[in-house]
Structure formats: C-alpha cells, structure tokens
C-alpha cells in the first residue's frame, strides 16, 4: 500500500466516523423524522381516508376540539374552540372560537369557515367518503343524500364570526370525541375557491405553497413517494407549545426497509415493526420497541351475496374452525389478541358480546348441515389479500386450519394494494382480508361500518334491525343504555357472521430514546405539538 492510498483510506474512515445521522441532526435542529407507511393520495381532509394522510393532516389543520398530550381517556380539550356550551336537551352545541386562532396566511379562523367546510364535505357532488361522520348534524344526512337541497336547513350556523352553533339530529354522547376526526376539520375557503369549485376534489389547493392551514405546522414540501415536510407555523395560536421546527413524513411501505432506516438512524419513529423483528427487539433492545393497545380489528370479509357464503351456517363454520390463540401466540407474536367480536374489548366501558369460540366439532356439524360434510363438494374458494408478509402468513395458517378442521381446500391470491381495494370495493372476492382502525374511541366507530349505507361496508350484508339499533344508540345519552344497544347490534352482526373476526392488532413502532412525549394511545394519535426531541 503506498502512502497516498493509506492517506486516502484514513481520510475516508475519519469522514465516516464524523458523519451525523439524520436522527442526530434532527435532535439538534428539532426535526422529527417519521415513518408514515404509505404515500397519501391527497391532503384534503374531506377526501382522504388513509391513516397516513390523517397523520399529516393532523399536523396541518386543527378542529374545534383537540387531544391532550397524555390522557388515556382521550377527553377532548379546547382546540380552535376555546370553550363550548351544551343545551339542556344535549342537541345544541355552541362553540366560542379563539380570538387568536389564525390561518397560516394571517386570516382569522371564523365560524363561517366551519360552515363552509361542513357544507363542502356534505355536498352530494363531492361524494366524500367520510361525509357520514357529519350525519350527526341535524339534516346532515338528508342534505348529503340530496333529499334536502338547501344547506340552510342543516344544523350548522355562524352566530357571529367567532361563535359557531352545531345542532345535532339526536343527542350523541360521543359527539365531542368525534369532532377530533379530520372530517370535522376546517379548510380555508378562499384557498379552496381559488383552485376550483367548492365541491371539486383533487385540485391544486393541497400543494405546498398553496395549502393554507390552521394547525401547528405548515406544508413546506411534498415530494411524491419521498417525503412530506411540514414546518412550524409561527401564526398558530399555541405556537409557544410547539417544540419541533419540522416534521418529515416518509412513505416507506416496505416494513423491512423502514426498520433498516431506523437502525441506520434515519427515522425517529417507525410506522410499524416487521413481523419477525418484534421478537428480536423484545429480547435485545426492549427500550426501542413500543407495542400499545390499538383500536384495530383484523378480520376476514365474506361475500354474503355469493354461494356458499350466503348460508350463515357456512360462515359460522368457517369462523369457528380458526384457532385464533394459536395464530396470536405462534404466528404473529407481537401482542395481538384473539378476536371473537368486531369491536375490541377495551373501548371505554363497552364490553362486546362473546358469541362464539373455536369449536371444531360444532363447525364440522354446521358445515355438514349446510350440505358440505367433511368439506365435500365445497365450491372452489379464493382468499384475497394484499401482498404483505403478515397477511400471507395468517392466510397460509387459516388455509391449513380450514383444511385440517373442515376439509375445505381454499386457494390464496395475493394482489397489489390498489387492485385489492378495487376488488374489495366491487365485491370481486369470495373471502377477503380486511381490517378496521377506529376513527374515534367509541364502539360506533366500529359498528357504523356495517350500516346498510356505510361507505366501508364491503361485505354486501345489511340488516334493518341492526341499522335501527345503532340509530337508537346514537340518540341515547345514557352510556349503559347505549352499551346495551351496541351489544344488541353486535350480537346481530356476529350472529349473522358476514365477517370473521380474527385478531386485535396492537400499534407497533420503534422509537428513538430522544423522542419525548410520544405516549401510548388507543387511536395511535400522537399530537405533534407536544412532541419534543432531546439531544
């Protein structure tokens, strides 16, 4: 080795040793690097449905009420509204907006902005997937479905520029928690109208530079499939609380790559942890691993419009022949809980009914009654899922369990996420994997999915009695009575079994020790304004 090579290598080595990782730089400059799992399709709160978009939106916009930094009960705290009063019959809420709540261009946030926003999401022409959240409002549903053409009749009124009155169809105990969902967030009317009609979707208003928000951060850059960068908003009313200067959201869909980025010091917090790494972190670096209870239900959808799944006995047999404990303990192994109901057993005081258990004998009997003794003559069936290690592994295990326990041979089909979504929406499947993450901490966030006109009801199942019970529950203010109604509704749902509940998945993430204020939350919400980074 000659002298120059030696010197060059020395230089290279010293260079390597000194280089700071993005996490270290971030800790110093208060830049949070977040794994965000997927690229948001849009950042319009009235359009998006994905958790990854919701994460970014929660940094950019703020609703009437907000979330406290560390409160397991998830009690709503003042957001844009500094205070509110409720009428005696619990249907009229009057919100007093903060005088210092401003849009990021300096305009004050007014009650009229909220009226505009709710008008927008409820517009029939907009077809917003989350419009049903606002069906709580008086005549909200009727306007959204086009039966009332006049928005004046909907229960949204600006008393003056800083006073907003919301009138509900029925008293709803969970109303304030529902307000924390992004579908209730305001948008800046002049910006929307500058780039298109009020009810137009996909316009340029959500682009960096155009986006005007009222949240703790403003949109600085959006590089497709690379990152979304948001920066501290100096005009935010509570800017003093915000400690971070910048957040970068990385849409890393491959969990293994995300974990590798974390190890390389490129991410502060990951969106998830790869299936087989949980065990490793649990044993070797437990301080970096976070497994928290989460309102997330993993289940299989059955196409009830199609034989043999139009027979409830077949559906029940399939559900009973799966050993969920085995899957949780030996396959997924990340703190999953076996699910025998659609609603997790840890939402407030609601305890879902336990209507079935793993019972192979009973399952075989039901299947025989349905005309398929020992699985004979069972029609060719395909289990559809989107490509992912977790889904593949669970599907393979379930396939084997059905084969061993019922004699049914099903085929597996994995497809790309968009194809999967399309097929599920158009009900082009026999059995499909699915999951549901609650939008707010109330059983109705789960049970409303299966309403006859629920935007996410992909099973083709509907029950008038079920709809009715949920309607009653929504208008009940007494929580024990409400829980009883929810339980009745869930009894119908699980009794008819258009879905096969499998597991309740925890929220999994890897987190650098420098991140402070990232508290467990059953909604996996971590209000960014309270997050701090330590050097």
């Amino acid at each position, binding site marked *: 080795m000659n002298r120059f090579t030696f010197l060059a290598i020395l230089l290279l080595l010293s260079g390597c040793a000194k280089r700071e990782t993005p996490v270290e730089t971030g800790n110093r400059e208060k830049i949070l690097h977040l794994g965000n799992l997927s690229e948001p399709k849009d950042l319009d709160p009235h359009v998006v449905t994905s958790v990854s978009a919701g994460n970014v939106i929660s940094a950019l916009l703020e609703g009437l009420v907000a979330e406290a930094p560390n409160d397991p009960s998830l009690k709503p705290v003042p957001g844009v509204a500094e205070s509110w009063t409720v009428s005696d019959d619990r249907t009229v809420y009057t919100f007093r907006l903060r005088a210092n709540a401003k849009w990021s261009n300096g305009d004050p946030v007014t009650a009229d902005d909220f009226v505009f926003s709710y008008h927008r999401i409820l517009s029939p022409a907009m077809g917003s997937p989350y419009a049903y959240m606002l069906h709580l409002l008086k005549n909200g549903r009727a306007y959204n479905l086009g039966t009332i053409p006049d928005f004046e009749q909907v229960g949204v009124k600006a008393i003056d520029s800083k006073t907003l009155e919301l009138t509900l169809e029925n008293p709803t105990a969970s109303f304030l928690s529902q307000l924390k969902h992004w579908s209730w967030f305001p948008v800046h009317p002049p910006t929307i109208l500058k780039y298109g009609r009020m009810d137009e979707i996909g316009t340029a208003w959500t682009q960096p530079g155009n986006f005007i928000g009222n949240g703790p951060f403003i949109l600085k850059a959006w590089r497709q499939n690379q990152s979304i960068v948001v920066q501290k908003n100096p005009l935010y009313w509570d800017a003093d609380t915000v400690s971070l200067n910048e957040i970068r959201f990385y849409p890393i869909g491959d969990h*293994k790559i995300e974990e590798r980025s974390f190890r390389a010091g490129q991410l502060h917090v990951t969106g998830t942890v790869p299936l*087989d*790494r949980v*065990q*490793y972190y649990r044993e070797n670096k437990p301080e970096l691993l976070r497994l928290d209870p989460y309102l997330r239900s993993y289940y299989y959808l059955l196409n009830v419009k199609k034989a043999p799944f139009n027979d409830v006995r077949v559906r029940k047999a399939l559900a009973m022949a799966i050993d969920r404990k*085995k*899957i949780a303990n*030996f*396959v997924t192994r990340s703190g999953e809980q076996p699910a025998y109901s659609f609603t997790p057993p840890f939402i407030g005081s609601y305890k879902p009914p336990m209507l079935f258990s793993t019972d192979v004998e009973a399952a075989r009997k039901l299947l025989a009654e349905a005309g398929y003794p020992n699985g004979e003559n069972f029609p060719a069936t395909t289990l559809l899922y989107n*490509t992912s*290690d977790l889904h*593949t*592994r669970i*599907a*393979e*295990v379930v*396939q*084997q369990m059905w084969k061993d326990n019922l004699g049914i041979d099903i*085929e*597996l*089909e*994995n*497809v*790309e996420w968009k194809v999967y979504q399309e097929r599920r929406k158009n009900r082009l499947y026999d059995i499909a994997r699915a999951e549901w993450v609650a939008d707010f901490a109330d059983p109705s966030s789960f049970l409303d999915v299966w309403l006859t006109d629920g935007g996410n009801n992909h099973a083709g199942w509907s029950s008038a009695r079920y709809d009715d019970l949920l309607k009653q529950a929504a208008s009940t203010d007494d929580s024990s009575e409400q829980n009883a109604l929810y339980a009745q509704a869930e009894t119908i749902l699980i009794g008819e079994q258009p879905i096969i509940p499998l597991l309740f998945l925890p929220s999994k993430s890897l987190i650098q020790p420098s991140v402070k204020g990232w508290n467990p939350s059953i909604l996996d919400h971590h209000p960014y304004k309270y997050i701090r980074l330590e050097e």
Partner: protein
Amino acid sequence: MSRKPVKNSLWADSWKQLRKNHAAIAGLIILIILITASALAPLLTPYSFEQQNLELGAVKPSLHHWLGTDTLGRDLFTRLLYGGRTSFLVGICATAVSLLIGVPYGAVSGYAGGKVDSVMMRIVDILYTMPFTILVIILMVVFGRNILLMFGAIGAIQWLVMARIIRGQVMALRKQAFVEAAIAIGASHPRIIFKHIIPNVLGIIIVYTTLTIPHVMLMETFLSFLGLGIQPPMSSWGLLIKDGASVMETYPWLLISPAIVFSVTLFSMNFLGDGLRDALDPRFSKGKF
C-alpha cells in the same frame, strides 16, 4: 464451415467430446441427482410440504429437520424438494412451449425466405419489444392465476429467441444439396422442413433448450418475487428464496439453503449447456459466443 468426416455417428462423437468436459459432466450428474430427489420427494422425507407446526415455529437445522423449519414450522428440506418439482416443471414445460412454437415458426420463416420471412421476423421483433412483466400481469388478470398459464406465459416469451436462432440455421441449410435434392424428387414443403431440415438443427435446439431452462426457472423466481408466481402453500425455489429473503436477518437458514440449491442448479445447467454447445456445434466452440 467444415464438418467432421462422418465415421462415427455425430451423436457418439459429441458424447465423446462432452465427456472430456468435466464441468459439463459434473453439472449433468448434479442435475440428475436434483431431479431424481425432487421426483422422489415423498420417499425421501417423512414430512408433508404443507403441514404446519405452529408451536414449533422456525428452528435451526437439526437432526430432525435437516435444513431447519420455516416460520410456520414446515420442514424446509421437504419444501425444497417439492419446490424443486415446481421449478423443474416450470422450466421444462415452459421450455417445451417455447420449442413447440419457436421451432416450427423459425423453420418456416427461414425456409420460406423473402417477404414471408420479413413479415414473420418483424412480428417477432414487435413481440420482442413487449415488456415481459406487464404481459404476464395482464395474462394473470385476464385469465386468473394458474400454473399452466404461467408455463404458457413464460413459454410465449421464450419462443422468440428460439425462433430467431432456428431461422438463422435453416436459412443456411436451405441452400444445401440435400434440400435441393428433396425438392427435386417432389417432397412437399412441410415434409422437407420437418423431415429433413429440423433433424439437422437438433443439436442447436438441444443446446438452447439447456440454456433456456435455467433462464425460465429464473423467471419463475422473479415472478414469485413479485407475488405473481406460485401461490402458497405450494412451494417453488423462487418462493422459498423470496420468503427466506424477507426473514434473512432473523432466520438466515431459510434463505441460505434454497439460494445455494438454486444457484448450483443454474450453474450446472449452464455448464451442461455450454458443454453441449461445444460438443454438438463445433462452430461455436472455445467460448467465442
């Protein structure tokens, strides 16, 4: 173009030459072992390729499980043997499809010459520009997923190369005396092509077949990697490598043995193919190609 004086038959001569090529012979032996083992899989292992043992989970290679077990507790050795069945089957069937289309097509094109040849070869050129992956995805979406379709899809791509090679050979043969003689005594065109010309390009066909099979097996791996190949619980080497790669940091043995077996197979086939080329087609010998 000089041919050896035909004393011994061409085949005996070639075999003699092939035997001298140690790499090719080693490749041949390894392939025979692997194919036999795959074919006799049920006799060689007490386990089933799909029987899961969830309580066991992934364990390292041991006396009970020679190559360890995968995350669902399935014996990897067994899955490797059964995977070999799929991989060899894909390789052989898809190559057969490519021969079935490519050889007659190339022969007709080369024999006819002129405008017919131009048109037929332009069609090949056009098909050649079609992106393979997209074609396969489209086929899968339209016809649904099944293993036969995959043979067809891969074969349908591979025949293009075969057709070009055969055409070149046939063009050279077509002006030779024995073809003219056949024409003179009034043999029909199909008879000339299939009775006289194709037997003369058999050497080339064999060589390219041995080179196409590994190529096709690699394609199956590639499709499995995209999730378009074989569906679980069936196994193929491609699928095993894919699954192994996804857990390589936690359970490295799930990647190592399938990867080694697959690489060894590819090496063997390529060595054998090279050896056969040298032996059967003297013009290409000495590694010029």
